[in-house]
């Protein structure tokens, strides 16, 4: 058996995974894109497409993290708090106006590790204290915001670290560095999902957790690990927002928790777990970004944005369960 058969084999799995039901979101993305392009000349300009992709970067990273949790059938509402804590941490560790720190990359790494720690905490609360994930992560989010508020201490830290600031500004092949970082995250997430036991078990836990237990697999460490990995993504996202804003803000992650769930669900990741994945979620992120950008471009007030996003997520969940709907089905 050679390596090529392995690659061919894994490719075959991918092809099978991309069955009819998985084709919906990509098709919707293309169709919606074409509709907006036809309606608005500004929308179809190269600069605007770059805009959309760049604006998607942070959401894509957050969604990468949350996708693993959703695949497991759990939910994660901690991203807003974790991002806030991470944003304050990184802005106080790289060159800034509040103290004399200048740790550069090490400061960024510290913020990501902090994200891991918060994720680890969520995971422990879930498996040891048996707190349902939505409640555990909501609590961790509040803790994160609390930590961020303490670090903020009433004075906004503005960053002067050249490298971190350049991420949001400098471009490579027309896209910002942040976008390339997001692309790397998507690739890493996809590799984790397809080629690591952690990723496959996350998928399996969402499919049939008790089967894993009966097969002698200890599920709890994997659950904690999944939340930890998700926390790392949120930590990085907090750093990215800080780069965009040039300052560390407690509200750095405001709204990303809901947007990331929206994107993942719109992309075809089921809230009940066991279906979807990183690539699905990426399509979902682009769909959400194209919609919000497109609506503004054709002249809809941006004040509509929040409500529209809410509509989209409910509609997407409804569409996802249509194939399974039967007469007399009970929904809770």
């Amino acid at each position: 058996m050679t390596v090529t058969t392995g690659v061919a084999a894994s490719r075959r799995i991918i092809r099978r995974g991309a069955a009819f039901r998985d084709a919906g979101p990509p098709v919707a993305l293309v169709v919606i894109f074409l509709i907006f392009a036809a309606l608005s000349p500004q929308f179809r300009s190269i600069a605007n497409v770059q805009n959309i992709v760049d604006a998607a970067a942070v959401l894509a990273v957050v969604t990468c993290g949350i996708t693993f949790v959703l695949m497991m059938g759990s939910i994660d509402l901690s991203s807003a708090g974790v991002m806030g804590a991470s944003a304050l941490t990184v802005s106080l560790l790289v060159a800034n106006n509040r103290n004399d720190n200048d740790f550069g990359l090490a400061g960024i790494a510290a913020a990501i590790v902090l994200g891991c720690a918060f994720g680890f905490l969520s995971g422990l609360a879930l498996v040891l204290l048996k707190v349902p994930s939505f409640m555990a992560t909501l609590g961790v989010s509040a803790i994160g915001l609390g930590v961020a508020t303490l670090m903020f201490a009433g004075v906004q830290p503005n960053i002067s670290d050249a490298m971190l600031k350049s991420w949001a500004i400098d471009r490579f092949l027309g896209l910002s560095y942040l976008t390339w970082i997001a692309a790397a995250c998507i690739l890493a997430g996809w590799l984790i999902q397809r080629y690591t036991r952690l990723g496959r078990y996350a998928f399996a836990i969402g499919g049939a957790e008790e089967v894993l237990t009966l097969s002698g697999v200890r599920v709890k460490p994997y659950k904690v690990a999944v939340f930890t990995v998700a926390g790392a993504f949120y930590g990085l996202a907090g750093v990215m927002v800080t780069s965009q804003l040039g300052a560390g803000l407690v509200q750095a992650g405001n709204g990303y928790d809901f947007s990331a769930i929206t994107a993942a669900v719109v992309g075809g990741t089921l809230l009940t777990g066991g279906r979807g994945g990183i690539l699905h979620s990426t399509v979902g992120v682009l769909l959400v970004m194209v919609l919000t950008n497109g609506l503004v471009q054709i002249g809809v007030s941006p004040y509509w944005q929040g409500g529209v996003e809410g509509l989209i997520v409910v509609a997407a969940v409804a569409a996802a369960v249509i194939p399974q709907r039967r007469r007399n089905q009970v929904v809770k």
Partner: protein
Amino acid sequence: MSVPAEREPATSAPVPALEVRGLVKHYPGVKALDGVDLVVRQHEVLGLAGENGAGKSTLLKALVGLVTPDAGEIYVRGGAVKLRSVVEAANHGIGMVFQEQSLVPNLTAAENILLGSEGAAVRRGVYRWDVMRRLAQEQLDKIGSKIDPLARTDTLSFADRQMVEIAKVLRIEQRSQHPPVIILDEPTSVLESKEIDTLFAQIRRLREFASVVFVSHRLDEVLDVCDRVTVLRGGQSVGEVATAGAVPRELHRMMIGSTGSDDHYHENAAEPVEAEQPRLSVRGLSGKSFRDIDLDVAAGEIVAIVGVHGSGREDVCRALFGIEPTSAGEIRMDGKKISLPNTRAACAAGIGYVPAERKIEGMVGPMSVAENMTLTKQKARCAGPFVVPKKQAGLVDRWIERLSIRTPTRDTAIQRLSGGNQQKVVLARWLIGGDIRLLLLDHPTRGLDIGARSEVYRLMRELAASGVATVLLADSLEEAIGMADRILVMNDGRVATEVGCPSGGKPSPLDLVKEMV
């Protein structure tokens, strides 16, 4: 992990692959195992028979480390072992194919086969798909299965999934140098008859290099595929039968502990039906999976509908309760035309339905017996919009007594009752209103043991005698023939034929099978 010390056989007889002595397991209020003994010889297929509650599943769970016994010993090839987890059992070469198929549906067959013991297929947490495919293929080759190891499990047929399970359980060979002991818990319950033949061929192959413990509530299957059968009753082993030449009746007798009633179906209580006008009259009913169904059921009559899987009989039954939509046809109750757009209309027309999936569709598990019984006929327990506790208590207690439902109190959660008593509560739900005219029974004895079945049959006779018309989808042909006054054979969505089935003039199963396929 201690490897069991090989005990020198005293005689020339080989050491049994697995031996259980005096195993005891208490649960609060129940003695699930009461000193059970069991011997599994090398290279034999041992059948395990017993009514529900005889201790079969507790014993099996103890053998794979899911239950820790309170007393007693388990010996593997002569050495005493303690089995504290599935992994420890696997290390001793004991593996089980669970009753509910236990595969992860969204993983590939290969991943399922290697789940928890990936070995070289995962190195430092990273998958090597080519190795995984090869290892899985080796397992599938052992049982001669042609399944693509990289197919997603939920795209496979039930029979193929069972093959995947067997391939998976054979992975325990990697953990132990000895021939494995494979336990199959009710493996045939989800299979069609052709698939069952394949499975049996597989079991006979397994015998070449393993010992097999086979559990099924279908005794003919047990006798067909096993070399020897051990019968459990009340948590004890009550006997052992060599299958050659044995008949199901013999096993029945050992399982229920008495000669058993020859009149299993209470045919003595069957009364001849004299009807001027049918209670239910269906003409030309058509739906998604059935066409042109004509069906008459008189008051006091039991009509069974038989047919293979896919004959559409379940859907006809559900259509009569307003669950399945119909496209054409006419339904009359006592001569009056009715339409059944939903279940509410059916209830109002005096129709009751006992669904096949009792635990999912038939009852609300955590709710009390009283709540479950009064779920539908609210008027019987209410004054206006309010529940009158006294009224409800009296009503429920009356029916608990009338149907001799064994429950500690009316407020006990229904899920704590045995299957037979649960089913009686489900039946009572339709009776308390006193307005029931037609009962649709969809596999009413599924999953019940012989004693409980017999009580359900008696109840059906009583209801028929009181003038209720019954449509029965029986669990087996024998049940249909035993209970029905008339049998409708359905084939491919149509009524193939109708067979009279009076007491004393019963058709043979063969007569019916002819029309079914």
